[in-house]
């Protein structure tokens, strides 16, 4: 079960937006001819979708990214082609946004087009991140993001994990947390995302089983 048209991923810093954006783009490409991944991150110069540009090229995914992404030049630049994701109705696009309200500012630029285009705007959450560990804190961060980006989320991706140490139990333990956020914000939980190596029991939600994309794998 994948979103159609334009999918935007936003959320708290370090919640897993780039990981999920990468996963979604690759999954969409299995089903559709034209898939674009658009990197609108204006916050983080260290971890970017551009780190995986060879992967996207091999998969036939168009990557729209600031020419400065991954160059170590800390210019929070916008890729000039970004607006093109709204122009071709045949394209399936995934937009990866920078963390927190500061990152979401970038989306404000396209607020009208996102609203008119009926985009899926997904809030990525991770119960195990320290500043968003309670449903209340996560909801606060969500509202800050919406205000800065001038949009409303349409759904939640529960990406609760502890990195390499994640167990199925950790994923299950975060379900009530995601449900509390869902109720507070009146947003549906679209999916639970987890490393594909984890064997999960039935959670009641669609599961996105992901290949993990890491930097510095020799660690």
């Amino acid at each position, binding site marked *: 079960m994948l979103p159609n048209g334009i999918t935007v991923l936003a959320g708290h*810093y*370090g919640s897993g937006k780039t990981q999920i954006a990468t996963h979604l783009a690759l999954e969409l490409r299995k089903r559709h001819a034209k898939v674009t991944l658009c990197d609108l991150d204006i916050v983080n*110069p*260290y*971890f970017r979708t551009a780190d995986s540009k060879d992967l996207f090229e091999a998969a036939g995914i168009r990557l729209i990214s600031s020419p400065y992404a991954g160059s*170590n030049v*800390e210019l929070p630049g916008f890729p000039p082609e970004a607006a093109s994701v709204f122009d071709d109705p045949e394209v399936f696009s995934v937009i990866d946004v920078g963390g927190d309200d500061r990152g979401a500012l970038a989306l404000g630029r396209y607020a009208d087009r996102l609203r008119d285009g009926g985009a899926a705007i997904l809030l990525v959450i*991770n119960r*195990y*991140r*320290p*500043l968003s*560990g309670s449903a209340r804190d996560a909801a606060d961060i969500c509202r800050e993001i919406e205000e800065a980006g001038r949009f409303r989320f349409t759904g939640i991706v529960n990406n609760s*994990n*502890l*990195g*390499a*140490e*994640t*167990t199925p*139990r*950790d994923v299950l*333990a975060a379900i009530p947390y995601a449900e509390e956020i869902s109720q507070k914000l009146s947003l549906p939980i679209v999916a639970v995302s987890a490393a594909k190596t984890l064997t999960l029991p039935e959670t009641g939600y669609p599961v996105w089983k992901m290949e993990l994309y890491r930097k*510095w794998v*020799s*660690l």
Partner: protein
Amino acid sequence: MSEKVLIKGNEAVAEAAIASGCRHFFGYPITPQSELAAYLARRMPKVGGVYLQAESEVAAINMVYGASAAGVRCMTSSSSPGISLKSEGLSYLAGCDLPAVVVNVQRGGPGLGGIQPSQADYFQATRGGGHGDYHIIVLAPGGVQEMFSYTCKAFDLADQYRMTVMVLTDGILGQMMEATSMTVNSEQATANSEKPWAVGGVRTGRARNIVNSLYLKPSELEETNLARYEKYKLVEDAEQAHDSYLLDDAEIVVAAYGASARIAKNAVDEARNRGVKAGLLRPVTLWPFPKKAFLEASKHARAFVSVEMSMGQMIEDIELAIRCSRPVSLCSRVGGMVPDPAKILQAIISASQEATA
């Protein structure tokens, strides 16, 4: 239910400061350290603390100078070029015997360099950074969990010895996320130990305290230096710390700290698979350097390999520690490049072959 959180190294340092009773942080943004300041900007007001973004790194370290003189636990953080700017302040803190915690999330240099990870500030850190005869204690965490626990320890050591303690880390450890427990042990609850030397206003009729590093009489200034070096002897004796892996029978000792040590550990495993008795000696304190552990390892080692993200800095301390009794070779990448296990393995095999020849 798990008690761990998924946290970046930079964020773990910030949480450790709060857990250690630090309520005064003076920051200035620079990649790859900025998350630390951004995190404390959000957290400090919630725990009744002060987050202040200074107008420069120089201002930030001098705010630490003032806050520390007033007797509170305080911290500042930066990355390599910013630490150079703070170096004058480090010297003044030493000259006044003030406790402080300073974090360096190293990036490539010299000059503006780049934003990717590096360990090229080893000399700067272990030799104190600024002018004059002094030392700072330098702790080198090896992962995100240790970013937390050694930052907590840094506050204790700073108060205990009235010294600056630097947490010397790098862009990898600062940026990477790992499952981490943020439990504080009882020793770390000593946040507000008595500081009878602090300047806090005289309310009790005691004689006034003066915090100052200016001594116009040479004999007096010499006296303060001599007294300080007596203290440093105690630190060198009591605080040397290291970690080891397969070291007991190691013939080739791989020495590495921080992120390099994590990569080197993989290479040590691979060397063992190939029949080379390799082991890892990871300095946790870079000053005081764990000389005793290196001297001990030299009894069974045939050669040492220093793995660094610098052009050969720690290698000098290894040679000094073992009194040049064994060959020490260098395996390094610099400028933001990270050594890969295959290159380290090659260095181990070469060291083994040369030691046999």
